[in-house]
């Protein structure tokens, strides 16, 4: 099977890029290992912080899919790319192991829009049935309409865990509370109430209720964060009627064959356990350890990389038009750093136009690319959801590293 462009990942970035290329006359194939296109859009269901509208990811995914199909884009779902070779050759297989008619796709350009993978957050008992990642809980609840459990606790306080806890509650689960991640080798920065409150202060747009109660701007100063961590009510406070516990954490998940209870403890403002631990009966534990860019195919393709905390991990080095260090290989979406679906979409449009220019599809000029690149910045600056407080400076550092390289 031969195409102008192959796109790995049919989330918002991949879909937007595919549409941009197909509209200009390019012949596109999209490959995704999930049974449905849309990627993480399918799990997204939340109230927009600025205007109170609901973001219904499933509907947005469906619209994009219909548009892609009407443009004649080939979509292969349930299909995984297990290797790539420059040129480009993509080696594919069926995720269920059944043979495919074609095991290889050839294209002139390749876009990796592979998104992110959840970071594990291990603690005693985390491999018991009934423990799942917050992303798993999101897909079960919002996409498949299955409650992860009847009595659920959430570990890890972040943007994602807040919105998914709310979704589970709306689905009828008894959400016992959101607890801070336990202090261990794997949780620096997210197990310390003081640091966590400080990073949250830059993301206040997302949970206005929480921060108004905490005193809003008080959190913006270092002293404010220390005080907030110290005086945060030990029994937590409720957001959307779900208790958030900045002064309690989890020590272990217990059960013989599956989750039966969790062992909780009070903690001091730096995350150390204090006092007697206590049990809470639950049948599901949702762990949120954050996201990191999914970069294996870029590694196999020979890209150079950069690790930046603001991007939440290691990403392929790329220029402002999404071209990597390997010719004909482009990136868009969370593989370039963890941000929301709106930023990913804008990056998809940019990568699509960049590929159009590279392959001389349609009439793309430098001006189009500049406008699309500017649009990514505008969307980033006005984003309701920020996953890391240093995202802006990390993007600048990445740009400098690219220029330095040339």
């Amino acid at each position, binding site marked *: 099977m031969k195409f102008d462009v192959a796109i790995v990942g049919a989330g918002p970035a991949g879909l937007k890029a595919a549409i941009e290329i197909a509209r200009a006359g390019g012949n596109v194939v999209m490959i995704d290992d999930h049974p449905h296109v849309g990627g993480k859009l399918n799990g997204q269901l939340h109230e927009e912080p600025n205007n109170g509208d609901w973001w219904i990811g499933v509907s947005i995914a469906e619209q994009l899919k219909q548009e892609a199909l009407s443009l004649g884009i080939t979509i292969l779902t349930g299909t995984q790319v297990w290797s*790539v070779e420059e040129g480009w050759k993509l080696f594919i297989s069926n995720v269920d*192991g059944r043979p495919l008619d074609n095991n290889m796709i050839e294209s002139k350009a390749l876009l990796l829009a592979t998104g992110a993978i959840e970071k*594990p957050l*291990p603690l005693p008992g985390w*491999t018991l049935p009934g423990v799942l990642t917050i992303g798993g809980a999101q897909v079960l609840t919002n996409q498949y309409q299955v409650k992860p459990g009847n009595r659920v606790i959430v570990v890890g306080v972040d943007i994602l865990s807040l919105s998914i806890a709310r979704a589970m509650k709306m689905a009828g689960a008894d959400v016992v509370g959101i607890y801070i991640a336990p202090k261990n080798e794997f949780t620096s920065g997210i197990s310390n109430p003081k640091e966590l409150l400080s990073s949250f202060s830059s993301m206040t747009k997302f949970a206005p209720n929480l921060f108004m109660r905490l005193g809003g701007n008080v959190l913006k100063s270092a002293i404010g964060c220390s005080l907030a961590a110290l005086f945060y009510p030990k029994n937590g406070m409720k957001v959307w009627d779900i208790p958030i516990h900045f002064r309690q954490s989890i020590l272990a998940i217990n059960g013989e064959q599956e989750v039966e209870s969790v062992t909780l403890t009070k903690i001091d403002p730096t995350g150390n356990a204090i006092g007697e631990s206590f049990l809470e009966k639950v049948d599901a534990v949702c762990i949120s350890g954050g996201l990191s860019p999914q970069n294996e195919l870029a590694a196999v393709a020979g890209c150079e990389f950069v690790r930046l905390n603001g991007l939440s991990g290691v990403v392929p080095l790329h220029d402002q038009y999404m071209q990597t260090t390997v010719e004909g290989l482009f990136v868009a979406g969370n593989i370039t750093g963890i941000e929301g679906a709106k930023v990913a979409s804008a990056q998809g449009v940019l990568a699509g136009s960049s590929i159009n220019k590279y392959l001389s599809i349609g009439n793309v000029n430098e001006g189009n690319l500049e406008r699309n690149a500017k649009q990514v910045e505008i969307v980033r600056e006005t984003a309701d959801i920020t996953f890391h407080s240093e995202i802006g400076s990390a993007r600048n550092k990445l740009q400098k590293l690219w220029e330095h390289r040339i």
Partner: protein
Amino acid sequence: MPKDENYLICRCEEISLKEIKNVKNNGLTTSQEIKMATRAGMGVCQGRICRSLIEQLVAETEEGSCKLPSKLTVHHPVRPVPLGMIVNKED
């Protein structure tokens, strides 16, 4: 209460935090060495779950440019596939 470190880090190969800490205490300092000594990261998922954990244990998380995303090399196949497919690819 003594700290329980018997929980798994590499789920595929069933390697616990305690086992990894033991080899670390015996002088192994890089993620590659830990992988070679314990098989952590060598299972069916090829380190997709535990890679970041092992990197944190040996503090291989510094910011900056790198030729590879991880010292734990990423090989193809990046997803589990039947051996026959790899053989066909090499033909």
